[in-house]
Structures are given as C-alpha cells and as structure tokens.
C-alpha cells in the first residue's frame, strides 16, 4: 500500500495510530526501565515512597550482586580503610567484602549450558532439517509432527521421569545433563525453523553441484550451508534465548553445581529484606543480552516464535 493509494490510511489516521502505539510502547517499557533504574539505586532510594524517578545513581546494587559482605565494628572499619571504589561503597554501610558471591558462577553456568545446548541443537537440527527438506524420509510428516508435539508436554511433567533418569545415570545437577535436556527441548524448534529456511534454497544449486561430481555430503556443506547461514544464525539465537530464559527444568533438576541464573537471581536476599537493587542489577545483566539479540533478530522474529509457521 503506497501513500497515494485510495484505500490507504489517511494522514490523520496515521497520526492517531502513531500516538496510540507510542503510548502503548512507553507504558509497556516502564517495567523494563524500572528494572534497569532500580539496579542503579541505593537501598533506601529503591524502597522510597513515592517511587523515585530521579535519584543519585549508585553502584551499590552491582557491588552487592557480585560480593558477599559482613557487618564489622567501627574500630575494625577505621583500622582498615577501603582500598578500592567498591570497597568504599560497602564501607559506607559499615560492611566489608568477604569474597565473591555465587552470581558469577551461576551466570557462567547459564553461558556454558546456553551455548553448549545451542550448538548441539543447531548442529543436529540442521542435519535433520536438511534430510526432511530434501529426501523422501519415510513417515516424514509424522516424524515432523512428533518432533513438534514434544513441545506440548509441560516441563514439570517430563521433569519427574527425567529427574529419575538423571539420578540413575549420574547426570543430576551436571552441565552435561542440562545441555542434553535443553538440546532435546530446542531440537523441535531448530528442526522446524531450519527446514523452513532450507526449503527456501532452490534445489537446483545442489543438483548442479551433484552433476559436477560433488558427493551429497559435499553439496550439503559447500552449497547449502553457506546459503542457509542467516537462517542458521537466527535459529541459533532463538535456541540460545530459550536456554537462557529456561526456569522450570533448571529449578527442578539443578541445585548447586549446574544451577543457572534464572533460579538464582530471585533468591538474592539482603540484610533485612530483599535487596532489590542487587536483584535488579542481576536481572539487568541477564536481560540486556536478550534485548540486544531481539533487536538484531527483528526480521526473523515472527518466524522464530511461530516455529516457522508464519514467514511474512
């Protein structure tokens, strides 16, 4: 529809539509901005009434997030002046830093499990999607539906046998176990999305390569893969976001060693009540990469969230 079209929206309608959408967007963004802002508030500012929009920025939340602290006597504090800027922040509250918190570990677990499972599911998914796209696999439609239907199970429901299975295989609370589990969950998305992307690559390219003496495998790696690169990349980001955000399996199947950040961040507590700046700081660090990826992905977003059913 062009601007000159007789059926297109009028300038006035466009204006009204624009204002309404912007108002909605601003309202919807408020909670997110509030998370980011709370991360930079001092403890008292974060629980002030009325809620403070303007405040003196503080890194207290971030320092609390990454460190463990204990209260110390005035004499001890006077005898040990703070050496660094972060020690100074806790010094002002009559505390000293005793060591790093577990946030770093949990965040790294999220990175390891996220990237590990993404790599595996995209790798296996690309192979399966290519086969489903190009060959007459027996029961193809049934298999594709079976792959999709695995997503219909509530995670809590499969957690019961997975818990028992992992316990007997020694995979409970391990990175390997979680990577395997997330790979299986993400495979359905990867296969469906990638099949859509590979379907769009004309078969003629491979056929030309095959006639030129390529083996099927060479045609796949040298002709199809480079063409599918964008699709593979966006599928990978979707798998990564899913593994990154996953909570149910993580909270039910991990406790110490392989726990990821989503079950950990809500358990952060301060002295005398929730330490909201630290929680918000953790959430900010955790959510920002996803926001960046979402912006990068915006062209393929629709495809990703509908398993390739809607392609625009």
């Amino acid at each position, binding site marked *: 529809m062009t601007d000159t079209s*007789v059926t297109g929206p009028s300038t006035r309608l466009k204006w009204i539509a*624009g204002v309404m959408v912007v108002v909605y967007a601003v309202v919807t963004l408020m909670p997110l901005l509030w998370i980011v802002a709370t991360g930079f508030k001092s403890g008292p500012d974060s629980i002030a009434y*009325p809620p403070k929009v303007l405040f003196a920025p503080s890194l207290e939340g971030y320092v609390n997030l990454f460190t463990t602290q204990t209260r110390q006597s005035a004499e001890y504090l006077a005898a040990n002046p703070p050496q660094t800027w972060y020690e100074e922040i806790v010094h002002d509250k009559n505390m000293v830093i005793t060591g790093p918190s577990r946030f770093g570990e949990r965040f790294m677990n999220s990175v390891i499990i996220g990237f590990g499972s993404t790599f595996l599911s995209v790798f296996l998914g690309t192979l399966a999607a290519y086969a489903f796209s190009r*060959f007459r696999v027996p029961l193809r439609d049934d298999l594709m539906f079976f792959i999709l239907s695995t997503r219909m199970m*509530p995670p809590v429901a499969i957690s019961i*046998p997975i818990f028992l299975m992992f316990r007997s295989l020694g995979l409970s609370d391990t990175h390997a176990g979680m990577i395997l589990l997330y790979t299986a969950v993400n495979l359905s998305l990867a296969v469906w999305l990638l099949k859509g992307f590979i379907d769009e690559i004309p078969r003629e390219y491979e056929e030309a390569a095959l006639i030129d003496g390529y083996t099927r495998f060479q045609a796949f790696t040298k002709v199809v893969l480079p063409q599918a690169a964008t699709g593979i990349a966006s599928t990978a980001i979707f798998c990564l976001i899913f593994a990154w955000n996953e909570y149910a399996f993580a909270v039910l199947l991990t406790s110490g060693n392989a726990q990821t950040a989503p079950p950990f961040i809500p358990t952060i507590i301060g002295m005398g009540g929730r330490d909201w700046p630290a929680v918000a700081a953790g*959430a900010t660090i955790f959510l920002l990469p996803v926001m960046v990826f979402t912006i990068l992905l915006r062209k393929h977003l629709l495809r990703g969230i509908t398993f390739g059913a809607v392609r625009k």
Partner: protein
Amino acid sequence: MPETAMDRAARATPPRMARRIRGLSDRAVAWVFVAPTVFLLLAVNIFPLIWTIRLSFTNFRANRPNAEVSSVGFRNYERILTDPDVWQTMQATAHFLFWTLFFQVLIGFALAWLINAKFRGSNFWTTVIVLPMMLSPALVGNFWTFLYQPQIGLFNYVVAFFSGADPTSFTMIGEVALAPWAIVIVDTWMWTPFIMLICLAGLRSIPASIYEAAECDRASKWRQFWTITVPMVLPFLMLAVLFRGIENFKMFDMVVQLTGGGPGNVTTLASIDLKREAFEKWRTGYSSAYAVILFVTVFGLASIYVKALNKVKER
C-alpha cells in the same frame, strides 16, 4: 547472491571427480542426518513419557527409592479426578487461560491494526513493544512482585495516581480477589506483542487490491473491516491463540515467581500443583498420573482446535 553460489559450486568442482559417484547414497545420508535427532527425542521425551505412564499405575515415591512399589491400578487417576482441589486448580488454569487470551487477542489485534497504518517510525516502535516477550519469565515474574508492592511498588503508585485510591489499600498478589488478575496482567503485558506480531503478518498478507475492489463497490470501511480484514486475519489469529493457549496451559515459571500459587491456592495453576505433588510431597506415582492427564488434555484440546483451524483456512 544466487549467482555467487552457482559460481562457487562451479569453481570448486574438482574436474577429475566429475560424474564419479562417491560417498553415501542419498538414502544413507538421510538416515544418518535424521537418526541422532530422533534418537535424542526418543530418549528425552518418549522414553520418559512411557516411564511416566508406567509410574502412574504405582504408588512409587521418588524420595524412597528402596521402598516396595506396588501396582495400584487406576486408583491414582480416580483420586485426581475426584479431588476438589484438583478441580479448583483446573478452574484457576481455565480462568488464567481465558482472560489472558481474551485481553491479548483484543489488545494484540488492535495494536497490529494501528501499526499497519504504517506511520513514521512504526518499525522502531514495533521492536520496542516486542521486547517483554523475549525476556526470562521467571525474572520478570520475580521483578513484578516488586512493582506490585503496596507502598513502594510502581504499579500501585500509578494506579493510585490515576484513580485517587490509597496505594496501600490493595495488594495485587496478596488478596484472593486480586491475585488471579495480577498474573493475568503480567502475562498480558508480556505476551500481547506475540499476538500482535502474528496479526500484523496476517494484515500485511491481505492484498490491497481486495480493498480497492471493495471501495469500487462502495462498501463502507466498517463493512470492509468485518468482511475482509477479520476473515483474512482469522487463520493467523487462531494460530497465535493455539501457541499461546498451549504455552499458558503449561504456565509455570512466571506465576511461580510472582505469586507462588497463592494466596491460598487461587493462582495454583496445573503445573504449579503438579510440581508440589511431585517435588514437594514426592507422590511420584500420583503426580505421574496427574502429568498424563494434563498431557492428554492439552493434546486433545490442541487436536480439536487444529481441526477447527484447518476448516477456517480452507474457507
């Protein structure tokens, strides 16, 4: 871009190898490519499912692995289906499902329709609106407990500001009457963009020529909306509702963090109840039967719905 691939294919071809068939046959390649995926899904999805079905006929408890396990027939199923608490849970799930879908369809479609007017900057604002749905539901639910605090929370402050009520007079997640709506609000905030994006794709798939023809026939805008726009978007909208319906039937992370199923059990959705039975009370056999019932329900409802969806598509 297509040329480069052809060129590359042509250039990289080893002349000697031309027309020599080496490597695996297509059939073998297909099997080698598909097998690992199918195997992994069988191991992590189907095998556990079968195991769940088997456990559902026993009184097994996972926290007492050495205790004697005996078969109890359909007793677990009987107990679940006659338990008033389970029905209360189902009602809470249905309430959540119905109202989240209702608001998301309404607001999502309206937003899509507005964005489709293609004002300046509409692409930018679409991306902004979409952000909440990509975030970790558990962290979002957790942070909303802060926004819902009666005195210090932003939500109560804003509501009080516009309505004049005392911000400490209501606790969204602490009151039996409000908590079911608290989770509906957060879910609607998060997932309206999902419905919006899919509706937008539907709106954009309608060729302008149809409207032009309608204009020639002097059909009113109102009539065009109901006879062209709505029927053309409906298959897209129904697909979006299917996805959201399945997801919200499984809902766990956001609500568990936001209300933990409380106060009492007014926001105890099916998954939360199942988690309590399985991982807090450790009634493994009972909760396996519960899981089977939930799976059959979601699968059954989804199949019926897909049939209806296909009918709409065929029209």
